[in-house]
């Protein structure tokens, strides 16, 4: 395995990074941001969408700040998992990511922006050549999608990161910066359907930090994930359920989000509201779980089959609600 040559730039501040971004864009050069490198570099080794330049964010101190309300994009996943002010459900999700070595390199921003994955793209170049390329990996070759053939408009690669569903349920806001300026939006609006585009980030734009609303600590809940092995593996399905105000009469607010099932994570507001309306404990959880199962549409491009993953979404949802029923 060998990465193609590329130039690494290491800005010391956010402003410097954005200047570099602008200069590269203006000169028509393509580049990638690199944070921990645990996602980008394996893809580079596989020669997947390699760029000539890489801007490393590792020397920018301001991106490493972490507090109860704000988490910098360059905070390592391990630090997030172990930090005292991290919301317990977020800490649980963080602690379940990959392996401890990867968590020490991987970052919060990198995890949120994780590239989508698919059996037909996360392969070596020789391998991809042998299937005559795929729609995502080799844009421009005119190749068809290998998962759902006879359509080359939509990429169905799967988003397999763990932090997003929990952050979505906590009502997180994501903050972006580009040479054109800064902008913020609810995390739910950050993701944009299609395995190729994945999110709203524009050319030269980056994630700077995540903020959580003041009431984040009032929410309790759970995150459950499905995978073959307890280490290394990406989630084949992940469900976050968070709720508020349970005083024996059921929750006053309820949020459910899923990951690992489609090209973007989803917040299931309708299903959650439906459950709140006629809360009756166990039965409601059963109905809610079933509605989440129906709401997701995985495809055959990861380790487990789509039908199994959907069935497990139901089990995971129920399990994530367990605490809710106990109290």
């Amino acid at each position, binding site marked *: *395995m*060998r990465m193609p*040559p590329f130039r690494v730039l290491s800005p010391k501040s956010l402003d410097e990074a954005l200047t570099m971004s602008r200069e590269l864009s203006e000169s028509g050069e393509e580049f990638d941001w690199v944070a921990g490198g645990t996602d980008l570099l394996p893809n580079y080794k596989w020669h997947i969408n390699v760029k000539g330049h890489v801007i490393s964010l590792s020397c920018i101190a301001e991106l490493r700040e972490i507090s109860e309300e704000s988490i910098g994009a360059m905070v390592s996943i391990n630090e997030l998992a172990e930090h005292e002010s991290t919301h317990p459900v977020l800490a649980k999700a963080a602690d379940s990511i990959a*392996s401890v070595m990867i968590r020490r390199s991987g970052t919060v921003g990198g995890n949120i922006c994780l590239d989508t994955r698919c*059996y037909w793209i996360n*392969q*070596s170049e*020789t*391998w991809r*050549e*042998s*299937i005559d390329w795929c729609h995502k990996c080799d844009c421009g070759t005119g190749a068809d999608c*290998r998962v759902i053939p006879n359509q080359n408009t939509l990429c169905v690669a799967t988003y397999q990161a763990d932090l997003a569903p929990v952050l979505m349920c906590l009502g997180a806001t994501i903050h972006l910066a580009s040479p054109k300026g800064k902008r913020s939006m609810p995390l739910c609006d950050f993701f944009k359907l299609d395995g190729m585009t994945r999110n709203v980030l524009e050319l030269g734009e980056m994630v700077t930090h995540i903020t959580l609303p003041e009431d984040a600590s009032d929410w309790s809940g759970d995150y459950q994930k*499905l995978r*073959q*092995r*307890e*280490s*290394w*593996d990406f989630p084949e399905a992940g469900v976050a359920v968070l709720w508020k105000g349970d005083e024996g009469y059921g929750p006053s607010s309820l949020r459910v989000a899923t990951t690992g099932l489609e090209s973007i994570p989803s917040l299931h507001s309708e299903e959650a509201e439906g459950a709140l309306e006629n809360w009756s404990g166990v039965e409601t959880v059963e109905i809610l779980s079933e509605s989440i199962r129906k709401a997701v549409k995985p495809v055959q491009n990861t*380790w*487990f*089959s789509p039908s*199994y993953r959907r*069935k*497990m979404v139901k*089990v995971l949802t129920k399990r994530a609600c367990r605490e809710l029923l106990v109290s």
Partner: protein
Amino acid sequence: MSEKEDAPKEIVGYRQQPGKLPFSRPGSGGKGKFSEATDQEMIPESQGGKLAQEWGPHRHDELISGRVIGKSTSLVDSSWKVTGQAHYGDDVRLPGELIGRIVRSPHHYARVLSIDCTKALELPGVVAIATGDDAKNKFGVLPVTKDEHAMAVEKVRHAGDLVACVAAIDEATAREAERLIQVEYELIDPIHDMRKGLEDSEEPIHDRGDYHIGESNVQKRVFQEFGDIEGMIENSVASHKKNWIFAGVNHAFTEPHAVVAHWDPTGRLTLYTPQQVPHYVHRALADVLEIPMHQINVHRTFVGGGFGGKSDPFPHEMCAAILARKSGKPVRITFDREEVYWVNRGRHPSRIEMNLHADDEGRICGIETDALIDGGAFASFGHVTTYYNGVLHTAPYEIGAFHYTGARVWTNKPASGAMRGHGAVNSRCAVEVGLDDLAEKLSVDPISLRLANLLPPHSATITGFRVTSIGMRECLERVREESGWNKKFRKLPLGKGIGIGCGFFISGSGLPIHWDPNKFPHATVHLKIDMDGGVTIHTGAADIGQGSDTVVAQSVAEVLGLPLDMIRVKSRDSDTSPVDLGSYSSRVTFMNANAAISAAMQIREELLDATVEITGAERSGLVIGDRRIFLKEDPAVGVSYLEALHKSQEDRGALVASGAYRTPPMGKMHKGAAAGLAPAYSFSAYVTEVSVDVETGQIKVDKVWAAHDCGKALNPLAVKGQIIGSCHMGMGQVLSEEMRYGRSGNLMNPDLLDYKIPSIHEMPEVIPIIVESNDPEGPFGAKEAGEGPLLPILPSVCNAVYDAIGIRTSELPMSPEKVHKMIEKRCRMEGVSDPNNLTSPSLQHSSLQGVLENRAKEHGKRDKDRRLDEGRSDYHNGALFGLDPTIPPDEVDPRWSVRVTPEEEYLESPRLAGSAWKHTERRHAEGQE
């Protein structure tokens, strides 16, 4: 002048008179100044020591000096590894080296029309390019099935097959050149499904000329019938039938293949390669390069895991040598992980039909096996694998009949080959799960069923294998005891289960592939001892991490009474090592240690002679202890090791000795009788406890009690390591590992993220239990421990899952997905909506249980008597069914006659693999034309 007077008077250095240098004594030679007292706990009873010998004395007892054998010893090469100084294949750096890369086929099956290297050759930095035209001679690990080329000649046979190779000044250039080589292909319809391989094809993947089986892709077929086939069904009161599908698995060793080839200025080739079988590579190189073997030195580097995956001569090794010859420079080729999967040689994907029958006395009156195995694009070890899938489950049980049909087909996939537990693993799993099911049907305990049907020690199996020591009964009894089996089996709550599985494996293959075993030995070891007292061992046995260097060092150290640091093992270069067949079929400890003992015994004799000469002591009273030879009755009379050594060296210099091992004549005469023959066999029994999540189908293996009969643990630490490692590897196959081929026929997971090796989180607590059955021919009683321990883990997990949730899989790996499906099915059948409300299986013993327990007790006594009685009579499989144990049944009973080709009647409705016999070999078909 006064200064001169103060100078020392003794002359030092070379001027001193020869022979006057004082050697310190006694105990001189090692690091410790004095020799240690012999530890009587390590000396066998037969020699007057305190080491109990329940299994009787051994022919090597008198060689025991109590030094190292039987003591947990860290491997002699471990400090090299843990300090990072061990040089593996890719660590070899020769001055001026070039980097080689291989151009591989993107197609599953195609004719190579043309290869255009012009552009690549124009690239600055490219030094040499080679294609199939550069080396047209075929090679292969088995002389009977040489079907590989260094690079494609005419055809490519799987995606990833080699087409060309290039050497350049660095990796980037080589990779760039790889892209510039233009290959024109003509596609041929590929075959991916092994069942298709049984049919006639327009373009079979190989052409074996007159020996081709029809026009099919059948590479090898086997038909065998032993015992009372007709009576099998008649007498049966319970039968088990199951069609299994086993996914292929890869060895997934840590170190990818890597090789360095160098032609030195004298025109000799040295090939540096992490190999399990350097000698076969040596032969293949000579064939392919068309140079005599003496012009080649194969240097085995440290091997970062083999497990059978580095036991073929490989095309990339040929490529490196060809490129190095063309370029005149050393060439290094290192694989990416996916290349490891493309060269594969992993366990065969298989479809196995397993039928077992039991009679009213709880005897196994028949085993019928049909195994179709997917060989991929090349033969590799497949000829042998086809036999092993059948013959290696004819023990440890005494059986009434054995019917086996096996076939290996070529498909357009990377070649399957030998992998730890070669050929035995899948069918063993099917047999042991079948026995569990039979026990269920007979309402008896599955351990009792096994204990009442074991072959005794020193017996012959139904196929005529000579089995010597057997510790099967003790393995079963110990795991039953230590796991608390009787309190748990069929008594645990839903989702918790316990299961049993057994294993039987060869300890060395009886036939040395390349030559007549009656003419040449299997293993040879040379010893050299010079004045320093250190012993140099020359052996060709390949240490692949299993500790073969350590075992051979231990054997010599034990016989000569030396500490291990006085032993150095030179096992790397074919230039200096005597020929050894290599590390496969678990042969090394048995054969190589026997050869080492035989060499050490010669040195021992010379040391004893010298001692007699110096001391005048009675020779028969002498024993060897720690660096000292003395009278057992009067230890004050004796000499140090060095004194004896120097005495022996008088007039001749360094002592040298050569020891060899060959197998005794064994086995029957029918076609294929040699497959599965071994000088000894290992036995094992595991009990496994699992938890199954009934909602998700996820299985967690909680604990394994793993008993293995290795004859004698020469190094208990290494044996335990092998047992635990085997559990890990087998657990991967049973739970999560598979080479998954997608709908395009491509391998979807040629990487270690999606090829799911269990992580530390999945690994259960393993309690290794060593059973020592003291094999009469094994070195100090030892047998293998490297492969056999893998077999029982698969069925014991399967059977534990049944105990937990009442479902039996017929497909491996048992992924959560498949288990969940089976749970859903059971729920539907029983009308249960919540799987948590399922019932777990229970057991009410039938009257047969008592019969089995009594028989097991009687047999226990029979076995104990047999193992200690030197004058024991013969025992042939069949005695349990009322036949005379002393005569092979096929010689007296026509119903027990041996058949190795099917009759017309069988071919009317053959089983899956059996249908391979519908074809006629071309040489026989020609007459009809």
